[in-house]
């Protein structure tokens, strides 16, 4: 597997209090890989993802995409935010939201562009809602719009920052399976931040566990469960349960250590 994203010695200090959110973060993401980043709150996993996306600057270290350092947002790498109510613009229809990512960048005619955007909406199961406004849709549907908008730019990589954590359990299950389908159908590379251990184990091929603040990589383990994964079967496989316990022990240990550090 060829590496596509390379994270090397990354560190982020906040200027306001000089403390590091995380330090010495190095890992690589192979092409077509599905990686979950988990960690206790405050370990900087979301900040890390923002830096990978070029939305924020690290204080040390580099992120490179195909051996080219990242200096700002790149079109082959799209970000899906946790706060879909904000990242989806409420003054635009579903179709116009999806179109926003391509209208200034694609040489296609407006008719072709619309067709392309409708295809993305079909992929996420919103083909019947192009003219709806976001407030007329449920949270799960709004996050689907965000995913369709990201896909419309034909990215190779999706960076997702707790995309399903604001949704109820039913929606989350549905969107996890939708995401897995898109990942295998479109050959995407996905880095997925979550605080939910079960979610991480269920969807990812590899789980990276960050330690409590300042975050470092505590675990980087493969999840050798076969795809396609099934909500009930996968989650009751012995291997799943073993990994879950192993990661949970580690996570609790990180939380305890984090507490002990507080003066």
């Amino acid at each position, binding site marked *: 597997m060829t590496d596509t994203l390379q994270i090397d010695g990354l560190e982020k200090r906040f200027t306001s209090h000089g403390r590091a959110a995380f330090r010495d973060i190095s890992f690589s993401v192979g092409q077509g890989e599905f990686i979950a980043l988990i960690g206790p709150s405050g370990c900087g996993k979301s900040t890390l993802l923002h830096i990978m996306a070029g939305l924020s600057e690290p204080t040390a270290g580099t992120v490179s995409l195909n051996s080219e350092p990242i200096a700002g947002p790149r079109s082959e790498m799209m970000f899906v*935010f946790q*706060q879909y109510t904000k990242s989806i613009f409420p*003054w635009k229809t579903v179709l116009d939201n999806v179109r926003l990512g391509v209208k200034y960048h694609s040489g296609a005619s407006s008719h072709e562009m619309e067709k392309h955007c409708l295809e993305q909406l079909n992929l996420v199961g919103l083909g019947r809602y192009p003219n709806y406004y976001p407030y007329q849709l449920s949270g799960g549907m709004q996050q689907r719009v965000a995913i369709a908008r990201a896909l419309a730019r034909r990215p190779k990589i999706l960076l997702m920052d707790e995309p399903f954590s604001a949704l109820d359990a039913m929606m989350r299950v549905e969107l996890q399976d939708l995401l897995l389908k898109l990942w295998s159908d479109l050959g995407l590379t996905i880095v997925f931040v979550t605080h939910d251990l079960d979610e991480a184990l269920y969807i990812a091929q590899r789980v990276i566990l960050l330690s409590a603040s300042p975050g470092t990589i505590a675990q980087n383990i493969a999840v050798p469960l076969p795809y396609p994964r099934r909500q009930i079967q996968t989650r009751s496989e012995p291997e799943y349960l073993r990994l879950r316990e192993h990661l949970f022990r580690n996570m609790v240990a990180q939380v305890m250590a984090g507490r002990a550090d507080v003066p």
Partner: protein
Amino acid sequence: MKAWTAFRNSRAPGVVLLALLLVTWQLSATYWFKSPTWPTVTRIFEAWFENIADGTIPGHLIATLWRQMLGYGLAVVIGIMLGLVMGYYRLLYNLFEPLVEVLRPIPGPAYLPILVLFVGIGHEMKVTLIFLASLFPILLNTYSGVRSIDRVQFDTARTLGLSTLQTFRELVIPAASPQILTGMRISLAISLILAILGEMIVSNDGLGYFVLLSQRTFKVPDMYAGIFTLALLGYVLNRLFLIIESRLIRWHTESSGRT
């Protein structure tokens, strides 16, 4: 019981009260309080129709509207443009915000003496007065609207590769529009007040001039007719504004549950 609930929940109570007040006015002026300063409602409407028929009120109305819209229009254009860049660029905000905070508390009419010295007493003075008083609510609401745009929305624009100009068009202006419109509505009322004030102080046309002239020449029904015209003008302008506003930001009113 059902009819009562329907009445209670409708606009009818307010209309009934208005009608009762007019009837009381009419009766009081006819029977109890006969005075040239308190003409009957019917007499006022007569005066109103006469003044409309001979073109007096329409002429003054157009004069008032013209200077109001000139001053207000300038305030809208400059207030929004300055507010947008002040809200977006931190340096411009830090540069102008203290100045705005110092100038803002000055009541609009207080500009008048200075303006008389510098601009004279003509049309330009009144337009400038209206402009200055209308500017700050629009400016303030625009930059605070822009500044309250969520970080996530700017990050979204960046990941979608929007340029600064495209970000203004697709994000900043629509996101700030509810607050911009609030400022514009506040200023619309202010602009009418200042137009009338300017006309009362020094002018030879406009509704403010007409009302004051009628009072000074003891044409009391004309005076009331002028004031009635102003009430109507203010009401119609505000209504029109609300209609336009609800069209422009339907997404906002409907998503925040306001109707």
